[in-house]
């Protein structure tokens, strides 16, 4: 328990840093997506790409560009990881098998970064930097673009135009992600994260053993991996690996990076819709869920009443000493709440309650604060559902930000919310019925179910963290989890863009005395409650058979 106070101070330090960046970064991002002037490097990109950056797009055209771009991204990444042996700096690695290459390509393009391969054993520098890290930027930029298109839909009236996908993609990459990544890659590098093109160094240790110490372009990838809530580790141990995360302060910095853009986007939202109060309201609802989960995980890890961890005296199995238990918990909650999926500790060795909460974080739908962009539009779906439910209770036509929530809006929002649970539950059930998949589980019983459920939850929420234990590199699981990632990413995007368009076409309904205020504490509470209710109703049976049964067993 002596660790509690330093642990809380670490958490407060990160929160303070986020608070400092909230306004400047949020306002900056709002300017990035509203200004009409182009940077010179952007003009060059538009010219080479054959893009007219001053033409706006309706939702179908915006979506078409997004889907084509993602499709081409999957194809190129598939090619790169399949044929990496012919690329320079391949380090003697051979191409991935077709099913694993499919899984990996989809995984990185959907911002999931589920890794069915083991970083240092499977991929060379070229595939990591030119393939995976590029998608770390671009999948994040796509997520931001969709959120911004929805903001525009809510802010605009009587138009069908939502902006230009290519401009949003390029500006998100060039003006937001690239400068921030560059700064923080250098900071991480100074903290000991490696960045070199060397082959593994062969070392004869003092104890007389031989060790091969790997290199790689880790610092450049680590920065964007966290900043873009991607989470794909350069090494198998991900952010637990000392070369990815050398010290307690780099650990805190990485937590900060994961939370930075999802948190600041609520400000961008407030600025773009002309009501900063609504940005704070969304952030507060996210914050309530986040802090409740963080408190729960830390409490269950410190108490660690259960078997093996009690025998050890502390919940240190699967944790790095330098981060400490609370530093590891802070990272674990942030990575599952932001759809990052990087891990600095083994989630499968968390206490049953702590590990169960990590699953719960993801089944909330990655909205508190969620992935870059995707968390924002996910939470706005919850806001719309909350307006609808609250409207039913008081008997008024639901409105959000002066836009009517009619039957078509409700259908689109509800479908967007239901895609993930449907994908997870159907996917897990189908997979569990296959004998070959059951053979991939490390253990039978509730823990085995948790492993499989976690995999589908992680894939469909585009989180990508693994509850390990599951041998996920089988053709069946590679293909099925790839499909879950695709559905979990692109179906909500389609629905959100359609919804944005129905908002943009409306005029604004003036506020009246009867309008339900959607920025007050009461409504914030309703949003958090609705988010919990939706996931509880959809996932309680599955969780009861998995982590809950295990915790009680």
């Amino acid at each position: 328990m002596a660790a509690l106070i330093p642990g809380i101070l670490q958490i407060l330090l990160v929160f303070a840093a986020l608070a400092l960046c909230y306004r400047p970064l949020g306002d900056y991002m709002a300017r990035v997506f509203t200004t009409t002037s182009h940077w010179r490097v952007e003009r060059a990109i538009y010219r080479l790409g054959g893009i007219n950056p001053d033409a706006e797009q309706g939702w179908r055209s915006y979506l078409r560009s997004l889907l084509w771009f993602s499709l081409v991204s999957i194809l190129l990444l598939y090619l790169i990881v399949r044929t990496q042996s012919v690329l320079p700096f391949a380090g003697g690695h051979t191409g991935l098998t077709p099913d694993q290459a499919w899984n990996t390509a989809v995984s990185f393009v959907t911002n999931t970064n589920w890794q069915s391969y083991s970083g240092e054993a499977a991929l060379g520098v070229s595939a990591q930097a030119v393939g995976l890290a590029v998608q770390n930027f671009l999948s994040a930029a796509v997520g931001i673009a969709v959120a911004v298109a929805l903001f525009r839909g809510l802010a605009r009236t009587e138009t069908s135009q939502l902006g230009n996908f290519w401009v949003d993609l390029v500006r998100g990459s060039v003006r937001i992600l690239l400068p921030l990544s560059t700064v923080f890659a250098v900071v991480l590098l100074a903290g000991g994260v490696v960045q070199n093109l060397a082959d593994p160094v062969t070392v004869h240790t003092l104890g007389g053993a031989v060790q091969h110490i790997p290199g790689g372009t880790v610092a450049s990838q680590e920065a964007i991996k966290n900043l873009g809530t991607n989470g794909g580790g350069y090494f198998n141990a991900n952010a637990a690996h000392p070369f990815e995360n050398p010290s307690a302060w780099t650990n805190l910095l990485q937590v900060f990076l994961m939370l930075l853009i999802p948190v600041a986007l609520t400000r961008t939202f407030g600025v773009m819709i002309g009501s900063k109060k609504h940005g704070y309201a969304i952030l507060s609802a996210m914050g309530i869920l986040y802090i409740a989960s963080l408190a729960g995980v830390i409490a269950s890890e410190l108490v660690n009443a259960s078997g093996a961890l009690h025998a050890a005296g502390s919940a240190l199995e699967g944790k790095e000493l330098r981060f400490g238990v609370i530093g590891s918990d802070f990272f674990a909650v942030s990575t599952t709440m932001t759809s990052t999926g990087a891990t600095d500790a083994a989630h499968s060795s968390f206490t049953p309650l702590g590990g169960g909460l990590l699953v719960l974080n993801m089944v909330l739908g990655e909205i508190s604060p969620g992935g870059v962009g995707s968390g924002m539009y996910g939470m706005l779906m919850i806001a719309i559902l909350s307006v609808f439910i609250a409207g039913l209770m008081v008997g008024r036509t639901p409105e959000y930000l002066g836009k009517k929530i009619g039957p078509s809006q409700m259908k689109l929002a509800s479908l967007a919310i239901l895609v993930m649970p449907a994908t997870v539950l159907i996917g897990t059930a189908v997979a569990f019925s296959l004998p070959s998949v059951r053979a991939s589980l490390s253990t039978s019983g509730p823990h085995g179910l948790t492993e499989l459920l976690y995999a589908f939850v992680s894939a469909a929420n585009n989180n990508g963290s693994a509850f390990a234990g599951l041998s996920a590199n089988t053709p069946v699981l590679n293909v099925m989890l790839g499909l879950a990632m695709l559905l979990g990413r692109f179906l909500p995007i389609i629905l959100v863009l359609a919804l944005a368009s129905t908002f943009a076409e409306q005029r604004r309904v003036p506020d009246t005395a009867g309008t339900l205020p959607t920025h007050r504490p009461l409504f914030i509470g309703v949003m958090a409650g609705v988010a919990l209710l939706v996931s509880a109703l959809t996932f309680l049976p599955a969780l009861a058979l998995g982590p809950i049964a295990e915790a009680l067993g």
Partner: protein
Amino acid sequence: MSASSSLRSFGTALRTLLVLTVLLGILYPAAILLVGRAMPAAADGSLVLDHGKVVGSSLIGQDFTGDTWFHPRPSAGKYDALDSGASNLAPTSKDLAKQIEDLRAQVAKTENVSPDKVPADALTASASGLDPDISPEYARLQSARVAAARHLSEETVARLVREHTEEPLLGFIGVPTVNVLELNLALEHAAGSEAQ
């Protein structure tokens, strides 16, 4: 959508992706590589030299066995730096509970102390399997054995442990740790100097 407009969309997507790949996949990591040349020690893996020879990385744990060395934490990957990872055993696992009990007895016997004195980091495998650190408690527990095996005074070894104990940054970021490789290297040098 017509075939020609599909082809145009495909072309735009492909060209834009290629241009962005050059910027984000080549120029960006290359720029960070260049910065890395300004701080080669960090960029190259914080390698530890002894008499001009690389003996490891201060960030990557190594296995040390035998009475003359401080031992690191258990490792799921046996400190193979090309195979990082955790045991991934669940806390409810009977295997893990048994493993921890066995280790507790074994460490207690090695260090000749009572089993309840063995700290948790001596009994649990890390997440990376490459944890370079142990707790100061575990280091102090091993001091008597190491001192005896090396014919050093216990004060000398205790002083080395103190010198190599890293306190949390600003008093609260992290937990106190002892880097096993650096401690063992200092031990090796101390043995040399005391013998003279």
